[in-house]
């Protein structure tokens, strides 16, 4: 059993597990941090961005100045932004049988895999994962396609040139494989390959393996996966949370007794407490608005935003913010808000009970009804008429490289009254802000990452006790910036096996058993014999049938009845098949009883001699000698088959067959 590691990003994993005869891809994450190296795509022509100076080498050579621009000491690629794909060369992806998706953030590379690698399998995901994943993809495609950019830079990717560039461009990995965003057509085609599944649904793969999604508590429909056969179990934990937010709580019990637990998607901010961050978010927001400033919240269109809106719902009135407009701008804003209300089954208990009343599970329905929260597909159209300041704007993309957020950064960046609050943990906020420097606007960093931290992980591992833990290398050592923090790594026994991008791990499995079914007719014919108290044995001779990876034992065929009257078969036809095995024997033969038995069966003049290791029983008349020792019996006789068989059967009476 092997694990092929295709992504180096610990929260956007993409691994391929070869388990028994199946090839299973675990998640399909797309590393979008690559876009931080690109200039933002402004919705409205931005003189500032278009007038940035070209970058030239130290020696003054300016042949790259069309592709690379400089802003406050940082260098950016002036091109359509590109994404860092999972490794596609490590394993032939057309051999992947199924892809298991754990949450909507971990499926963003799906179109690249399903549409361009010869993939012919099935993708499994829960309904909310698919629906919200579709929204995220739709938003991404929309953000990029609505700002057509003529230029697609490639010169800088040349290995010899990349060496000469300043960090972080110099250190960017696999730039030659970076790809532009997919199209909506590819998204639709990729999503059509998904089969919807529910929590605790058992899905059979080729009769060999069973996979089951479990609630992971992180997002709507987010799941961990159990991949198991009858005797082996792999748990794939990806993006789990033990905090009570809106999703159904994490199912921990089902992860027990795993041989291997693959652990990915832990919190990216292990030192921050999400609850504290939410508090800070609210107070900073209120402070800015009270001073007449605007608040910009770069965010994804689904996920934490539901929790933030819920907090604000409770906070607005007490903080005296009821007159401040809240805007949510995204091409999928409306869909996201609507979808959140119909997935009651996937929500935490509190929210589930609401639909019994029946009431919408999220209070943002009321915010919308009372006009406190307004949503728009983009800054164009209705929004420009309704726009009032000061206000709070939730919009994407959190990388600040594309989407409506670019417009607000340009619009509000120059005033120190305004604040941008970062809540999404996927991008370094300093890097995200780099192309907007110098900025007068206040920047608050309140990353809200509800995924497991290391304390919760160690508790979880104690609880579910896997035999082995496998994790990305980032979790097997403290973060580079805090190398003394030994508490910021996975601590377990035996130590976790770690992987890095493009590595292949052999998983420590000792497969010893396989399931087989005994047909009822055969089971009826078995004769169990108690060997020790509570332990019985039965010898089995049966025909093995294997079909679709399922094994069945059927009763042996009846020996063909000799057909009387027909010509006797030639001797050579009767040569026995040496592969018909006789059972093994065990036990020992008590001489006295054996002799008694012989006598009972009509043998006379029996003589018994003692030897060093046992006895010799002599049947003088028959010129037969039986050597009996602790673990062996040897019958030496004339060629009298009748006699030999009689003696054999008498000996066998004292022995057990296996």
């Amino acid at each position, binding site marked *: 059993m092997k694990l092929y590691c295709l992504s180096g990003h610990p929260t956007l994993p993409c691994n391929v597990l070869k388990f028994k005869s199946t090839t299973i891809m675990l998640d399909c994450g797309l590393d979008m941090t690559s876009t931080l190296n690109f200039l933002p795509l402004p919705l409205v022509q931005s003189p500032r961005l278009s007038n940035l100076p070209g970058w030239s080498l130290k020696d003054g050579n300016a042949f790259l100045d069309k592709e690379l621009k400089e802003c406050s000491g940082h260098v950016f690629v002036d091109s359509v932004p590109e994404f860092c794909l999972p490794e596609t060369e490590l394993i032939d992806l057309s051999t992947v049988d199924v892809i298991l998706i754990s949450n909507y953030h971990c499926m963003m590379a799906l179109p690249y895999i399903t549409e361009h690698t010869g993939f012919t399998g099935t993708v499994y995901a829960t*309904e909310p994962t698919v629906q919200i994943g579709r929204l995220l993809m739709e938003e991404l495609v929309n953000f990029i396609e609505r700002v057509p950019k003529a230029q697609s830079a490639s010169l800088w990717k040349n290995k010899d040139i990349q060496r000469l560039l300043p960090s972080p461009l110099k250190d960017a990995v696999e730039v030659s494989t970076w790809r532009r965003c997919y199209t909506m057509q590819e998204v639709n085609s990729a999503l059509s390959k998904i089969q919807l599944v529910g*929590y*605790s*649904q058992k899905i059979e793969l080729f009769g060999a393996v069973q996979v*089951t999604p479990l609630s992971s508590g992180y997002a709507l429909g987010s799941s961990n996966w159990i991949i198991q056969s*009858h005797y082996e179990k792999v748990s794939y934990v990806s993006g789990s949370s033990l905090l009570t937010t809106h999703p159904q709580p994490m199912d921990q019990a089902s992860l027990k007794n795993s041989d291997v637990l693959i652990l990915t998607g832990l919190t990216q901010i292990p030192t921050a407490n999400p609850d504290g961050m939410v508090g800070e978010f609210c107070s900073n927001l209120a402070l800015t608005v009270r001073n007449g400033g605007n608040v910009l919240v770069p965010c994804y269109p689904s996920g934490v935003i539901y929790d933030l809106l819920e907090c604000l719902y409770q906070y607005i009135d007490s903080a005296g913010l009821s007159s401040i407009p809240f805007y949510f701008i995204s091409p999928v804003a409306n*869909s996201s808000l*609507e979808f959140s*209300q*119909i*997935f*009651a*089954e996937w929500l935490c208990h509190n929210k589930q009970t609401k*639909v019994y009343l*029946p009431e919408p*599970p999220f209070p943002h329905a009321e915010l919308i009804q009372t006009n406190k929260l307004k949503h728009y597909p983009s800054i164009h159209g209705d929004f420009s008429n309704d726009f009032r300041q000061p206000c709070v704007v939730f919009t994407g993309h959190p990388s600040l490289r594309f989407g409506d957020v670019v417009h607000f950064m340009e619009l509000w960046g120059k005033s120190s009254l305004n604040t941008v609050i970062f809540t999404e943990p996927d991008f370094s906020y300093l890097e995200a802000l780099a192309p907007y420097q110098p900025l007068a606007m206040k920047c608050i960093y309140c990353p809200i990452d509800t995924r497991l931290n290391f304390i919760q992980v160690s508790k979880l591992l104690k609880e579910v006790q896997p035999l082995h833990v496998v994790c990305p290398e980032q979790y097997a050592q403290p973060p580079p910036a805090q190398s003394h923090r030994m508490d910021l790594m996975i601590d377990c026994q035996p130590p976790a096996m770690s992987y890095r991008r493009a590595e292949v791990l052999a998983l420590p499995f000792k497969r010893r*058993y*396989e*399931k*087989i*079914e*005994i047909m*009822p007719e055969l*089971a009826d014919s078995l004769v*169990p014999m108690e060997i020790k108290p*509570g*332990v*019985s*044995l039965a*010898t*089995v001779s*049966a*025909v*093995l049938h*294997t079909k679709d990876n399922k094994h069945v034992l059927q009763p*042996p065929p009846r020996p063909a009845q000799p057909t009387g009257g027909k010509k006797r078969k030639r001797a050579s036809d009767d*040569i026995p098949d*040496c592969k018909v*095995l*006789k*059972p*093994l*024997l*065990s*036990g*020992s033969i008590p001489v006295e009883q054996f002799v008694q038995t012989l006598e009972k069966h009509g043998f006379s003049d029996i003589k018994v001699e003692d030897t060093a290791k046992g006895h010799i029983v002599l049947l003088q008349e028959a010129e037969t000698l039986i050597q009996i020792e602790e*673990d*062996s*019996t*040897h*019958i*030496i*006789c004339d*060629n009298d088959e009748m006699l030999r068989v009689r003696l*054999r059967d008498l*000996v*066998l009476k004292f*022995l*057990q067959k*296996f």
Partner: protein
Amino acid sequence: MPEIRVTPLGAGQDVGRSCILVSIAGKNVMLDCGMHMGFSDDRRFPDFSYITRSGRLTDFLDCVIISHFHLDHCGALPYFSEMVGYDGPIYMTQPTQAICPILLEDYRKIAVDKKGEANFFTSQMIKDCMKKVVAVHLHQTVQVDDELEIKAYYAGHVLGAAMFQIKVGSESVVYTGDYNMTPDRHLGAAWIDKCRPNLLITESTYATTIRDSKRCRERDFLKKELCILLETFWERMDLKAPIYFSTGLTEKANHYYKLFIPWTNQKIRKTFVQRNMFEFKHIKAFDRAFADSPGPMVVFATPGMLHAGQSLQIFRKWAGNEKNMVIMPGYCVQGTVGHKILSGQRKLEMEGRQVLEVKMQVEYMSFSAHADAKGIMQLVGQAEPENVLLVHGEAKKMEFLKQKIEQEFRVSCYMPANGETVTLPTSPSIPVGISLGLLKREMAQGLLPDAKKPRLLHGTLIMKDSNLRLVSSEQALKELGLAEHQLRFTCRVHLHDTRKEQEAAARVYSHLKSVLKDHCVQHLPDGSVTVESILIQAAAHSEDPGTKVLLVSWTYQDEELGSYLTSLLKKGLPQAS
């Protein structure tokens, strides 16, 4: 002999009061717990004393499953759990869990407040009963206990309606509840995978009907669909007559449809963000006072069988006028007013000896979403059961369907009456763990060219507690700490040969080599001959120099071949040419 037993307490050759007991591999499951609309005495609830007369029901039932929220499937639930007494788990889907208590409360109000019945379940009992409910998601495998598992499939009959698979080990039963195989305007079609249950228990309300798909597409709709249709129609025809919903119930139901969009059909799921199908412009809530207001109007009122409640009230008010019309939207159970007027009765005896003359027009349209004969056959084809059992239908119609199923699928079909038990013997195979070494050894040999010939696998089954493992005999001995006992035979075969022992051995070798072409025959340097692991040595006879003695020696494991060799050698060797 293991067996599956099924006893309908209700819905056996009848429609209404669905309640079926199933025993499978020692587990007892009750499917649905409905009331009968045709009765208002003891017969309206199933006779739970059948399960046990003295003990607690909880001790006899492992779980209760409710297929959907219609009262003929869940109406007796509070009576069963709170008044008779059952504390075990009750499984249903989430929409059922949401809507069921509302309908129960409505039913209770009609029975107690309007009809003044005593000894009926209370509102509190409905609440307490619902506390015992565990929500089941579609396709989720719910482990009721270590052995019993259940799984819900989409049934498409009403919002949240589900079919259930009940499984213990390799034995399983599927219960359909009510289902619909043709997608309609707001719900999808029932679906099940090829799960090959031992028994499929299916409803058969429309066992003899085969609705033609073209016409029924427009007619085959439910309340919500009616609204969607009427809304469009009113708009087109510019009709001014008001359309009313009789109770807050329907309005509330619309709310549920909105919140449980994933349970509706593909089209609604796809378009709900743009346009919620369940919001209507022309359709308003009905107030009781409206019934006497002049002018034409359309009122949707529940219940659909005119056995009680608002629909019956309005019916009584309007029955005398021939300008009015009542449209019966679905099947009516015997004993209800609906059934009576549909069968042509025009004078009805109401409570208090009052006689009501019905002059209004009576129309029947089959709007309720049940599977027709074609749909039932389709489902049987999908699930591929070993046996089929019909419930929730009329005996005559069942008979017709039973024959059809038996002919087409060549499976046995049963249709027990209430209280009658059907027993099906099952022969489950026994799952065992086989050591990978043994399996791989056998599979590798199975790949030999003569794989057509069935090969025998030998092993030892170790049974320890409930753990069964099949291992090779050697491993079994080792695990149990037992030594092998070797049984060896040595036979003396006399051979007339005056030449030396070595030459005799050589002759034996060439003879055996020519006869045993498929076996490994070797002549060893020390002069002995081996056939596979059987050793043959030639020795001089102590008394007769013209005779040589062949010592043929083999172990019990080579018994067949050893025995064969001695008899072969006994016949002597062919003369050297």
